[in-house]
Structure formats: C-alpha cells, structure tokens
C-alpha cells in the first residue's frame, strides 16, 4: 500500500561554489523508507559531503515514522559535521516539520534555487 520510496543522489555546486549533495526523494516517506532515506544518506562520502540538501518536491505522504527517519539522519549528520537543508515540502509538511522542531536543525526552503542561493 505504501508508494515505494525512491532516492537519487545528485552532486551540485551552490552559487557560492560549495559542493552540495542533493538527495531527491520520490514516493512515500514512512517506516518502510529506511533504506531509501538513511541508506542513501549513509552512502554519501562524509569527508566531501558537508552540505546535504533533501528534495521533497515529489513526496506526497510523510508520516511520523518517516519524520523519525529524517531526525535520525539529522543526528548522524550532526555527529559527522554535516549540515542538512531541505526544499520542496508542501505547506502542510512545512508546518509539521516546524511543529516537531526539525527547523531548528535543518533549514527549510521553498525551492532548490532558494536553498542553493543560501548555501
């Protein structure tokens, strides 16, 4: 019943010239998304991927288990000296991420262009 989570990694550079690892998610983010969410993040080289940008623009459904996976990623990123940002969340999930406090540890942006411009 869950739409399988797909994750794709893309390496970009911000206008300021910083390398940014973009994780593009598609489908649902739920308890079954561990490999896609944490697995794709953990496959990034820690030394060179200091800026991680999460693309939620093709994600329709995120539940509390999915949010917990994002928090687990933030914990690992914090421990590895990486910074995590996100864009493409709907207005509703932007509200939900704010309610649970994720915005304290991950900057949220409306679009990829806005996110990259800030990095």
């Amino acid at each position: 019943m869950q739409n399988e989570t797909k994750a794709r990694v893309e390496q970009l550079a911000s206008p300021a010239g910083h390398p940014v690892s973009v994780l593009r998610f598609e489908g649902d983010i739920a308890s079954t998304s561990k490999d896609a969410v944490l697995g794709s993040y953990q496959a990034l080289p820690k030394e060179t991927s200091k800026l991680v940008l999460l693309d939620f623009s093709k994600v329709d459904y995120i539940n509390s288990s999915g949010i917990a996976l994002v928090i687990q990623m933030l914990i690992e990123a914090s421990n590895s000296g990486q910074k995590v940002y996100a864009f493409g969340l709907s207005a509703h999930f932007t509200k939900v991420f704010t309610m649970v406090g994720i915005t304290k540890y991950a900057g949220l942006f409306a679009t990829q262009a806005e996110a990259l411009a800030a990095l």
Partner: protein
Amino acid sequence: MSGLKSIDAPKSTTVEVRLPSKMGFEKVAMSTASAVAKLMGFPEDRVEDLKTAVAEACINAIEHGNRLNEKLSVDVVLSAGVDSLEVKVIDDGKGMTKQPAKPDIDRKMHGEEDPRGMGMFLIQALVDEAEWVAGAEGKSSYVRLVIRLDKEAE
C-alpha cells in the same frame, strides 16, 4: 458537488471504513476522511491537518492497538455533523494508559529520546479535539478526533 452542509439530510452522516491491520492501509482512511471533509466544505489546509491526524491514529491502532495482527481490523467511523467532523479509530488493543511526553527535538538530537513517538503529539496539535478511550475488558479502544468547520472564525 453541493457539499454535505447543503444536503437535506439528518444531523449526522456516517461513513465507515474497515482496515486490515497492515501498515500502509492508513492511507485508505486518510483518503476517505479527506473526501468527507472536502464534501463538508473544509478548507484545504484543514483537510491536510485531518489527513495527517487520521493517518497517525490509524498507524497507532495498527501498530500498537492490534500489534500488526492482520486477523484484527481497525474500524474508522466518520460522522459528519452540521459544523464538525468526528472521526473514531477503533482497535482491539487495551487503549492508552498514559499520554506520552511532548516530543523534544533537542533530546532526540542528543540521543536522550527515541526519534520516533510523535504520532499522538501530531494528532493533538492538528485537530480541535482528541481523546483516547480505553475499551471495556481491554478491547475496542478508540481515539476520537473532532475537527470543526468554524475554527477560523473563533
């Protein structure tokens, strides 16, 4: 569609959905709740709030109430009143004995709190009323959610 409010109907219109205790089927209840709320004229942002609250209530019922036992069902009863929508999510568990603490992102980030455990918080934060009722003899426990049409005007 003219919306449920304009239909010359009884005070409450009920829709019932029975789900298997299998993760993912919460989306069926979520879609049904969304359709009913839209018929009642709820604005899009409130429909989204309701969808997340109903999904989380069903996930709790499937995972904690029925302990993923696919022989047990989760019943979702939506009662559309004149100015509010009530949703009951019923499982075969013993019900909540105590409310979990409000999630604390700092404690989660420092490993002092499980990253999970946000479902009940989201439910309470997103609807106008939420109550957890333990069923008699440890069965048929339910969570009751209410979302009101006139919230914006309050």
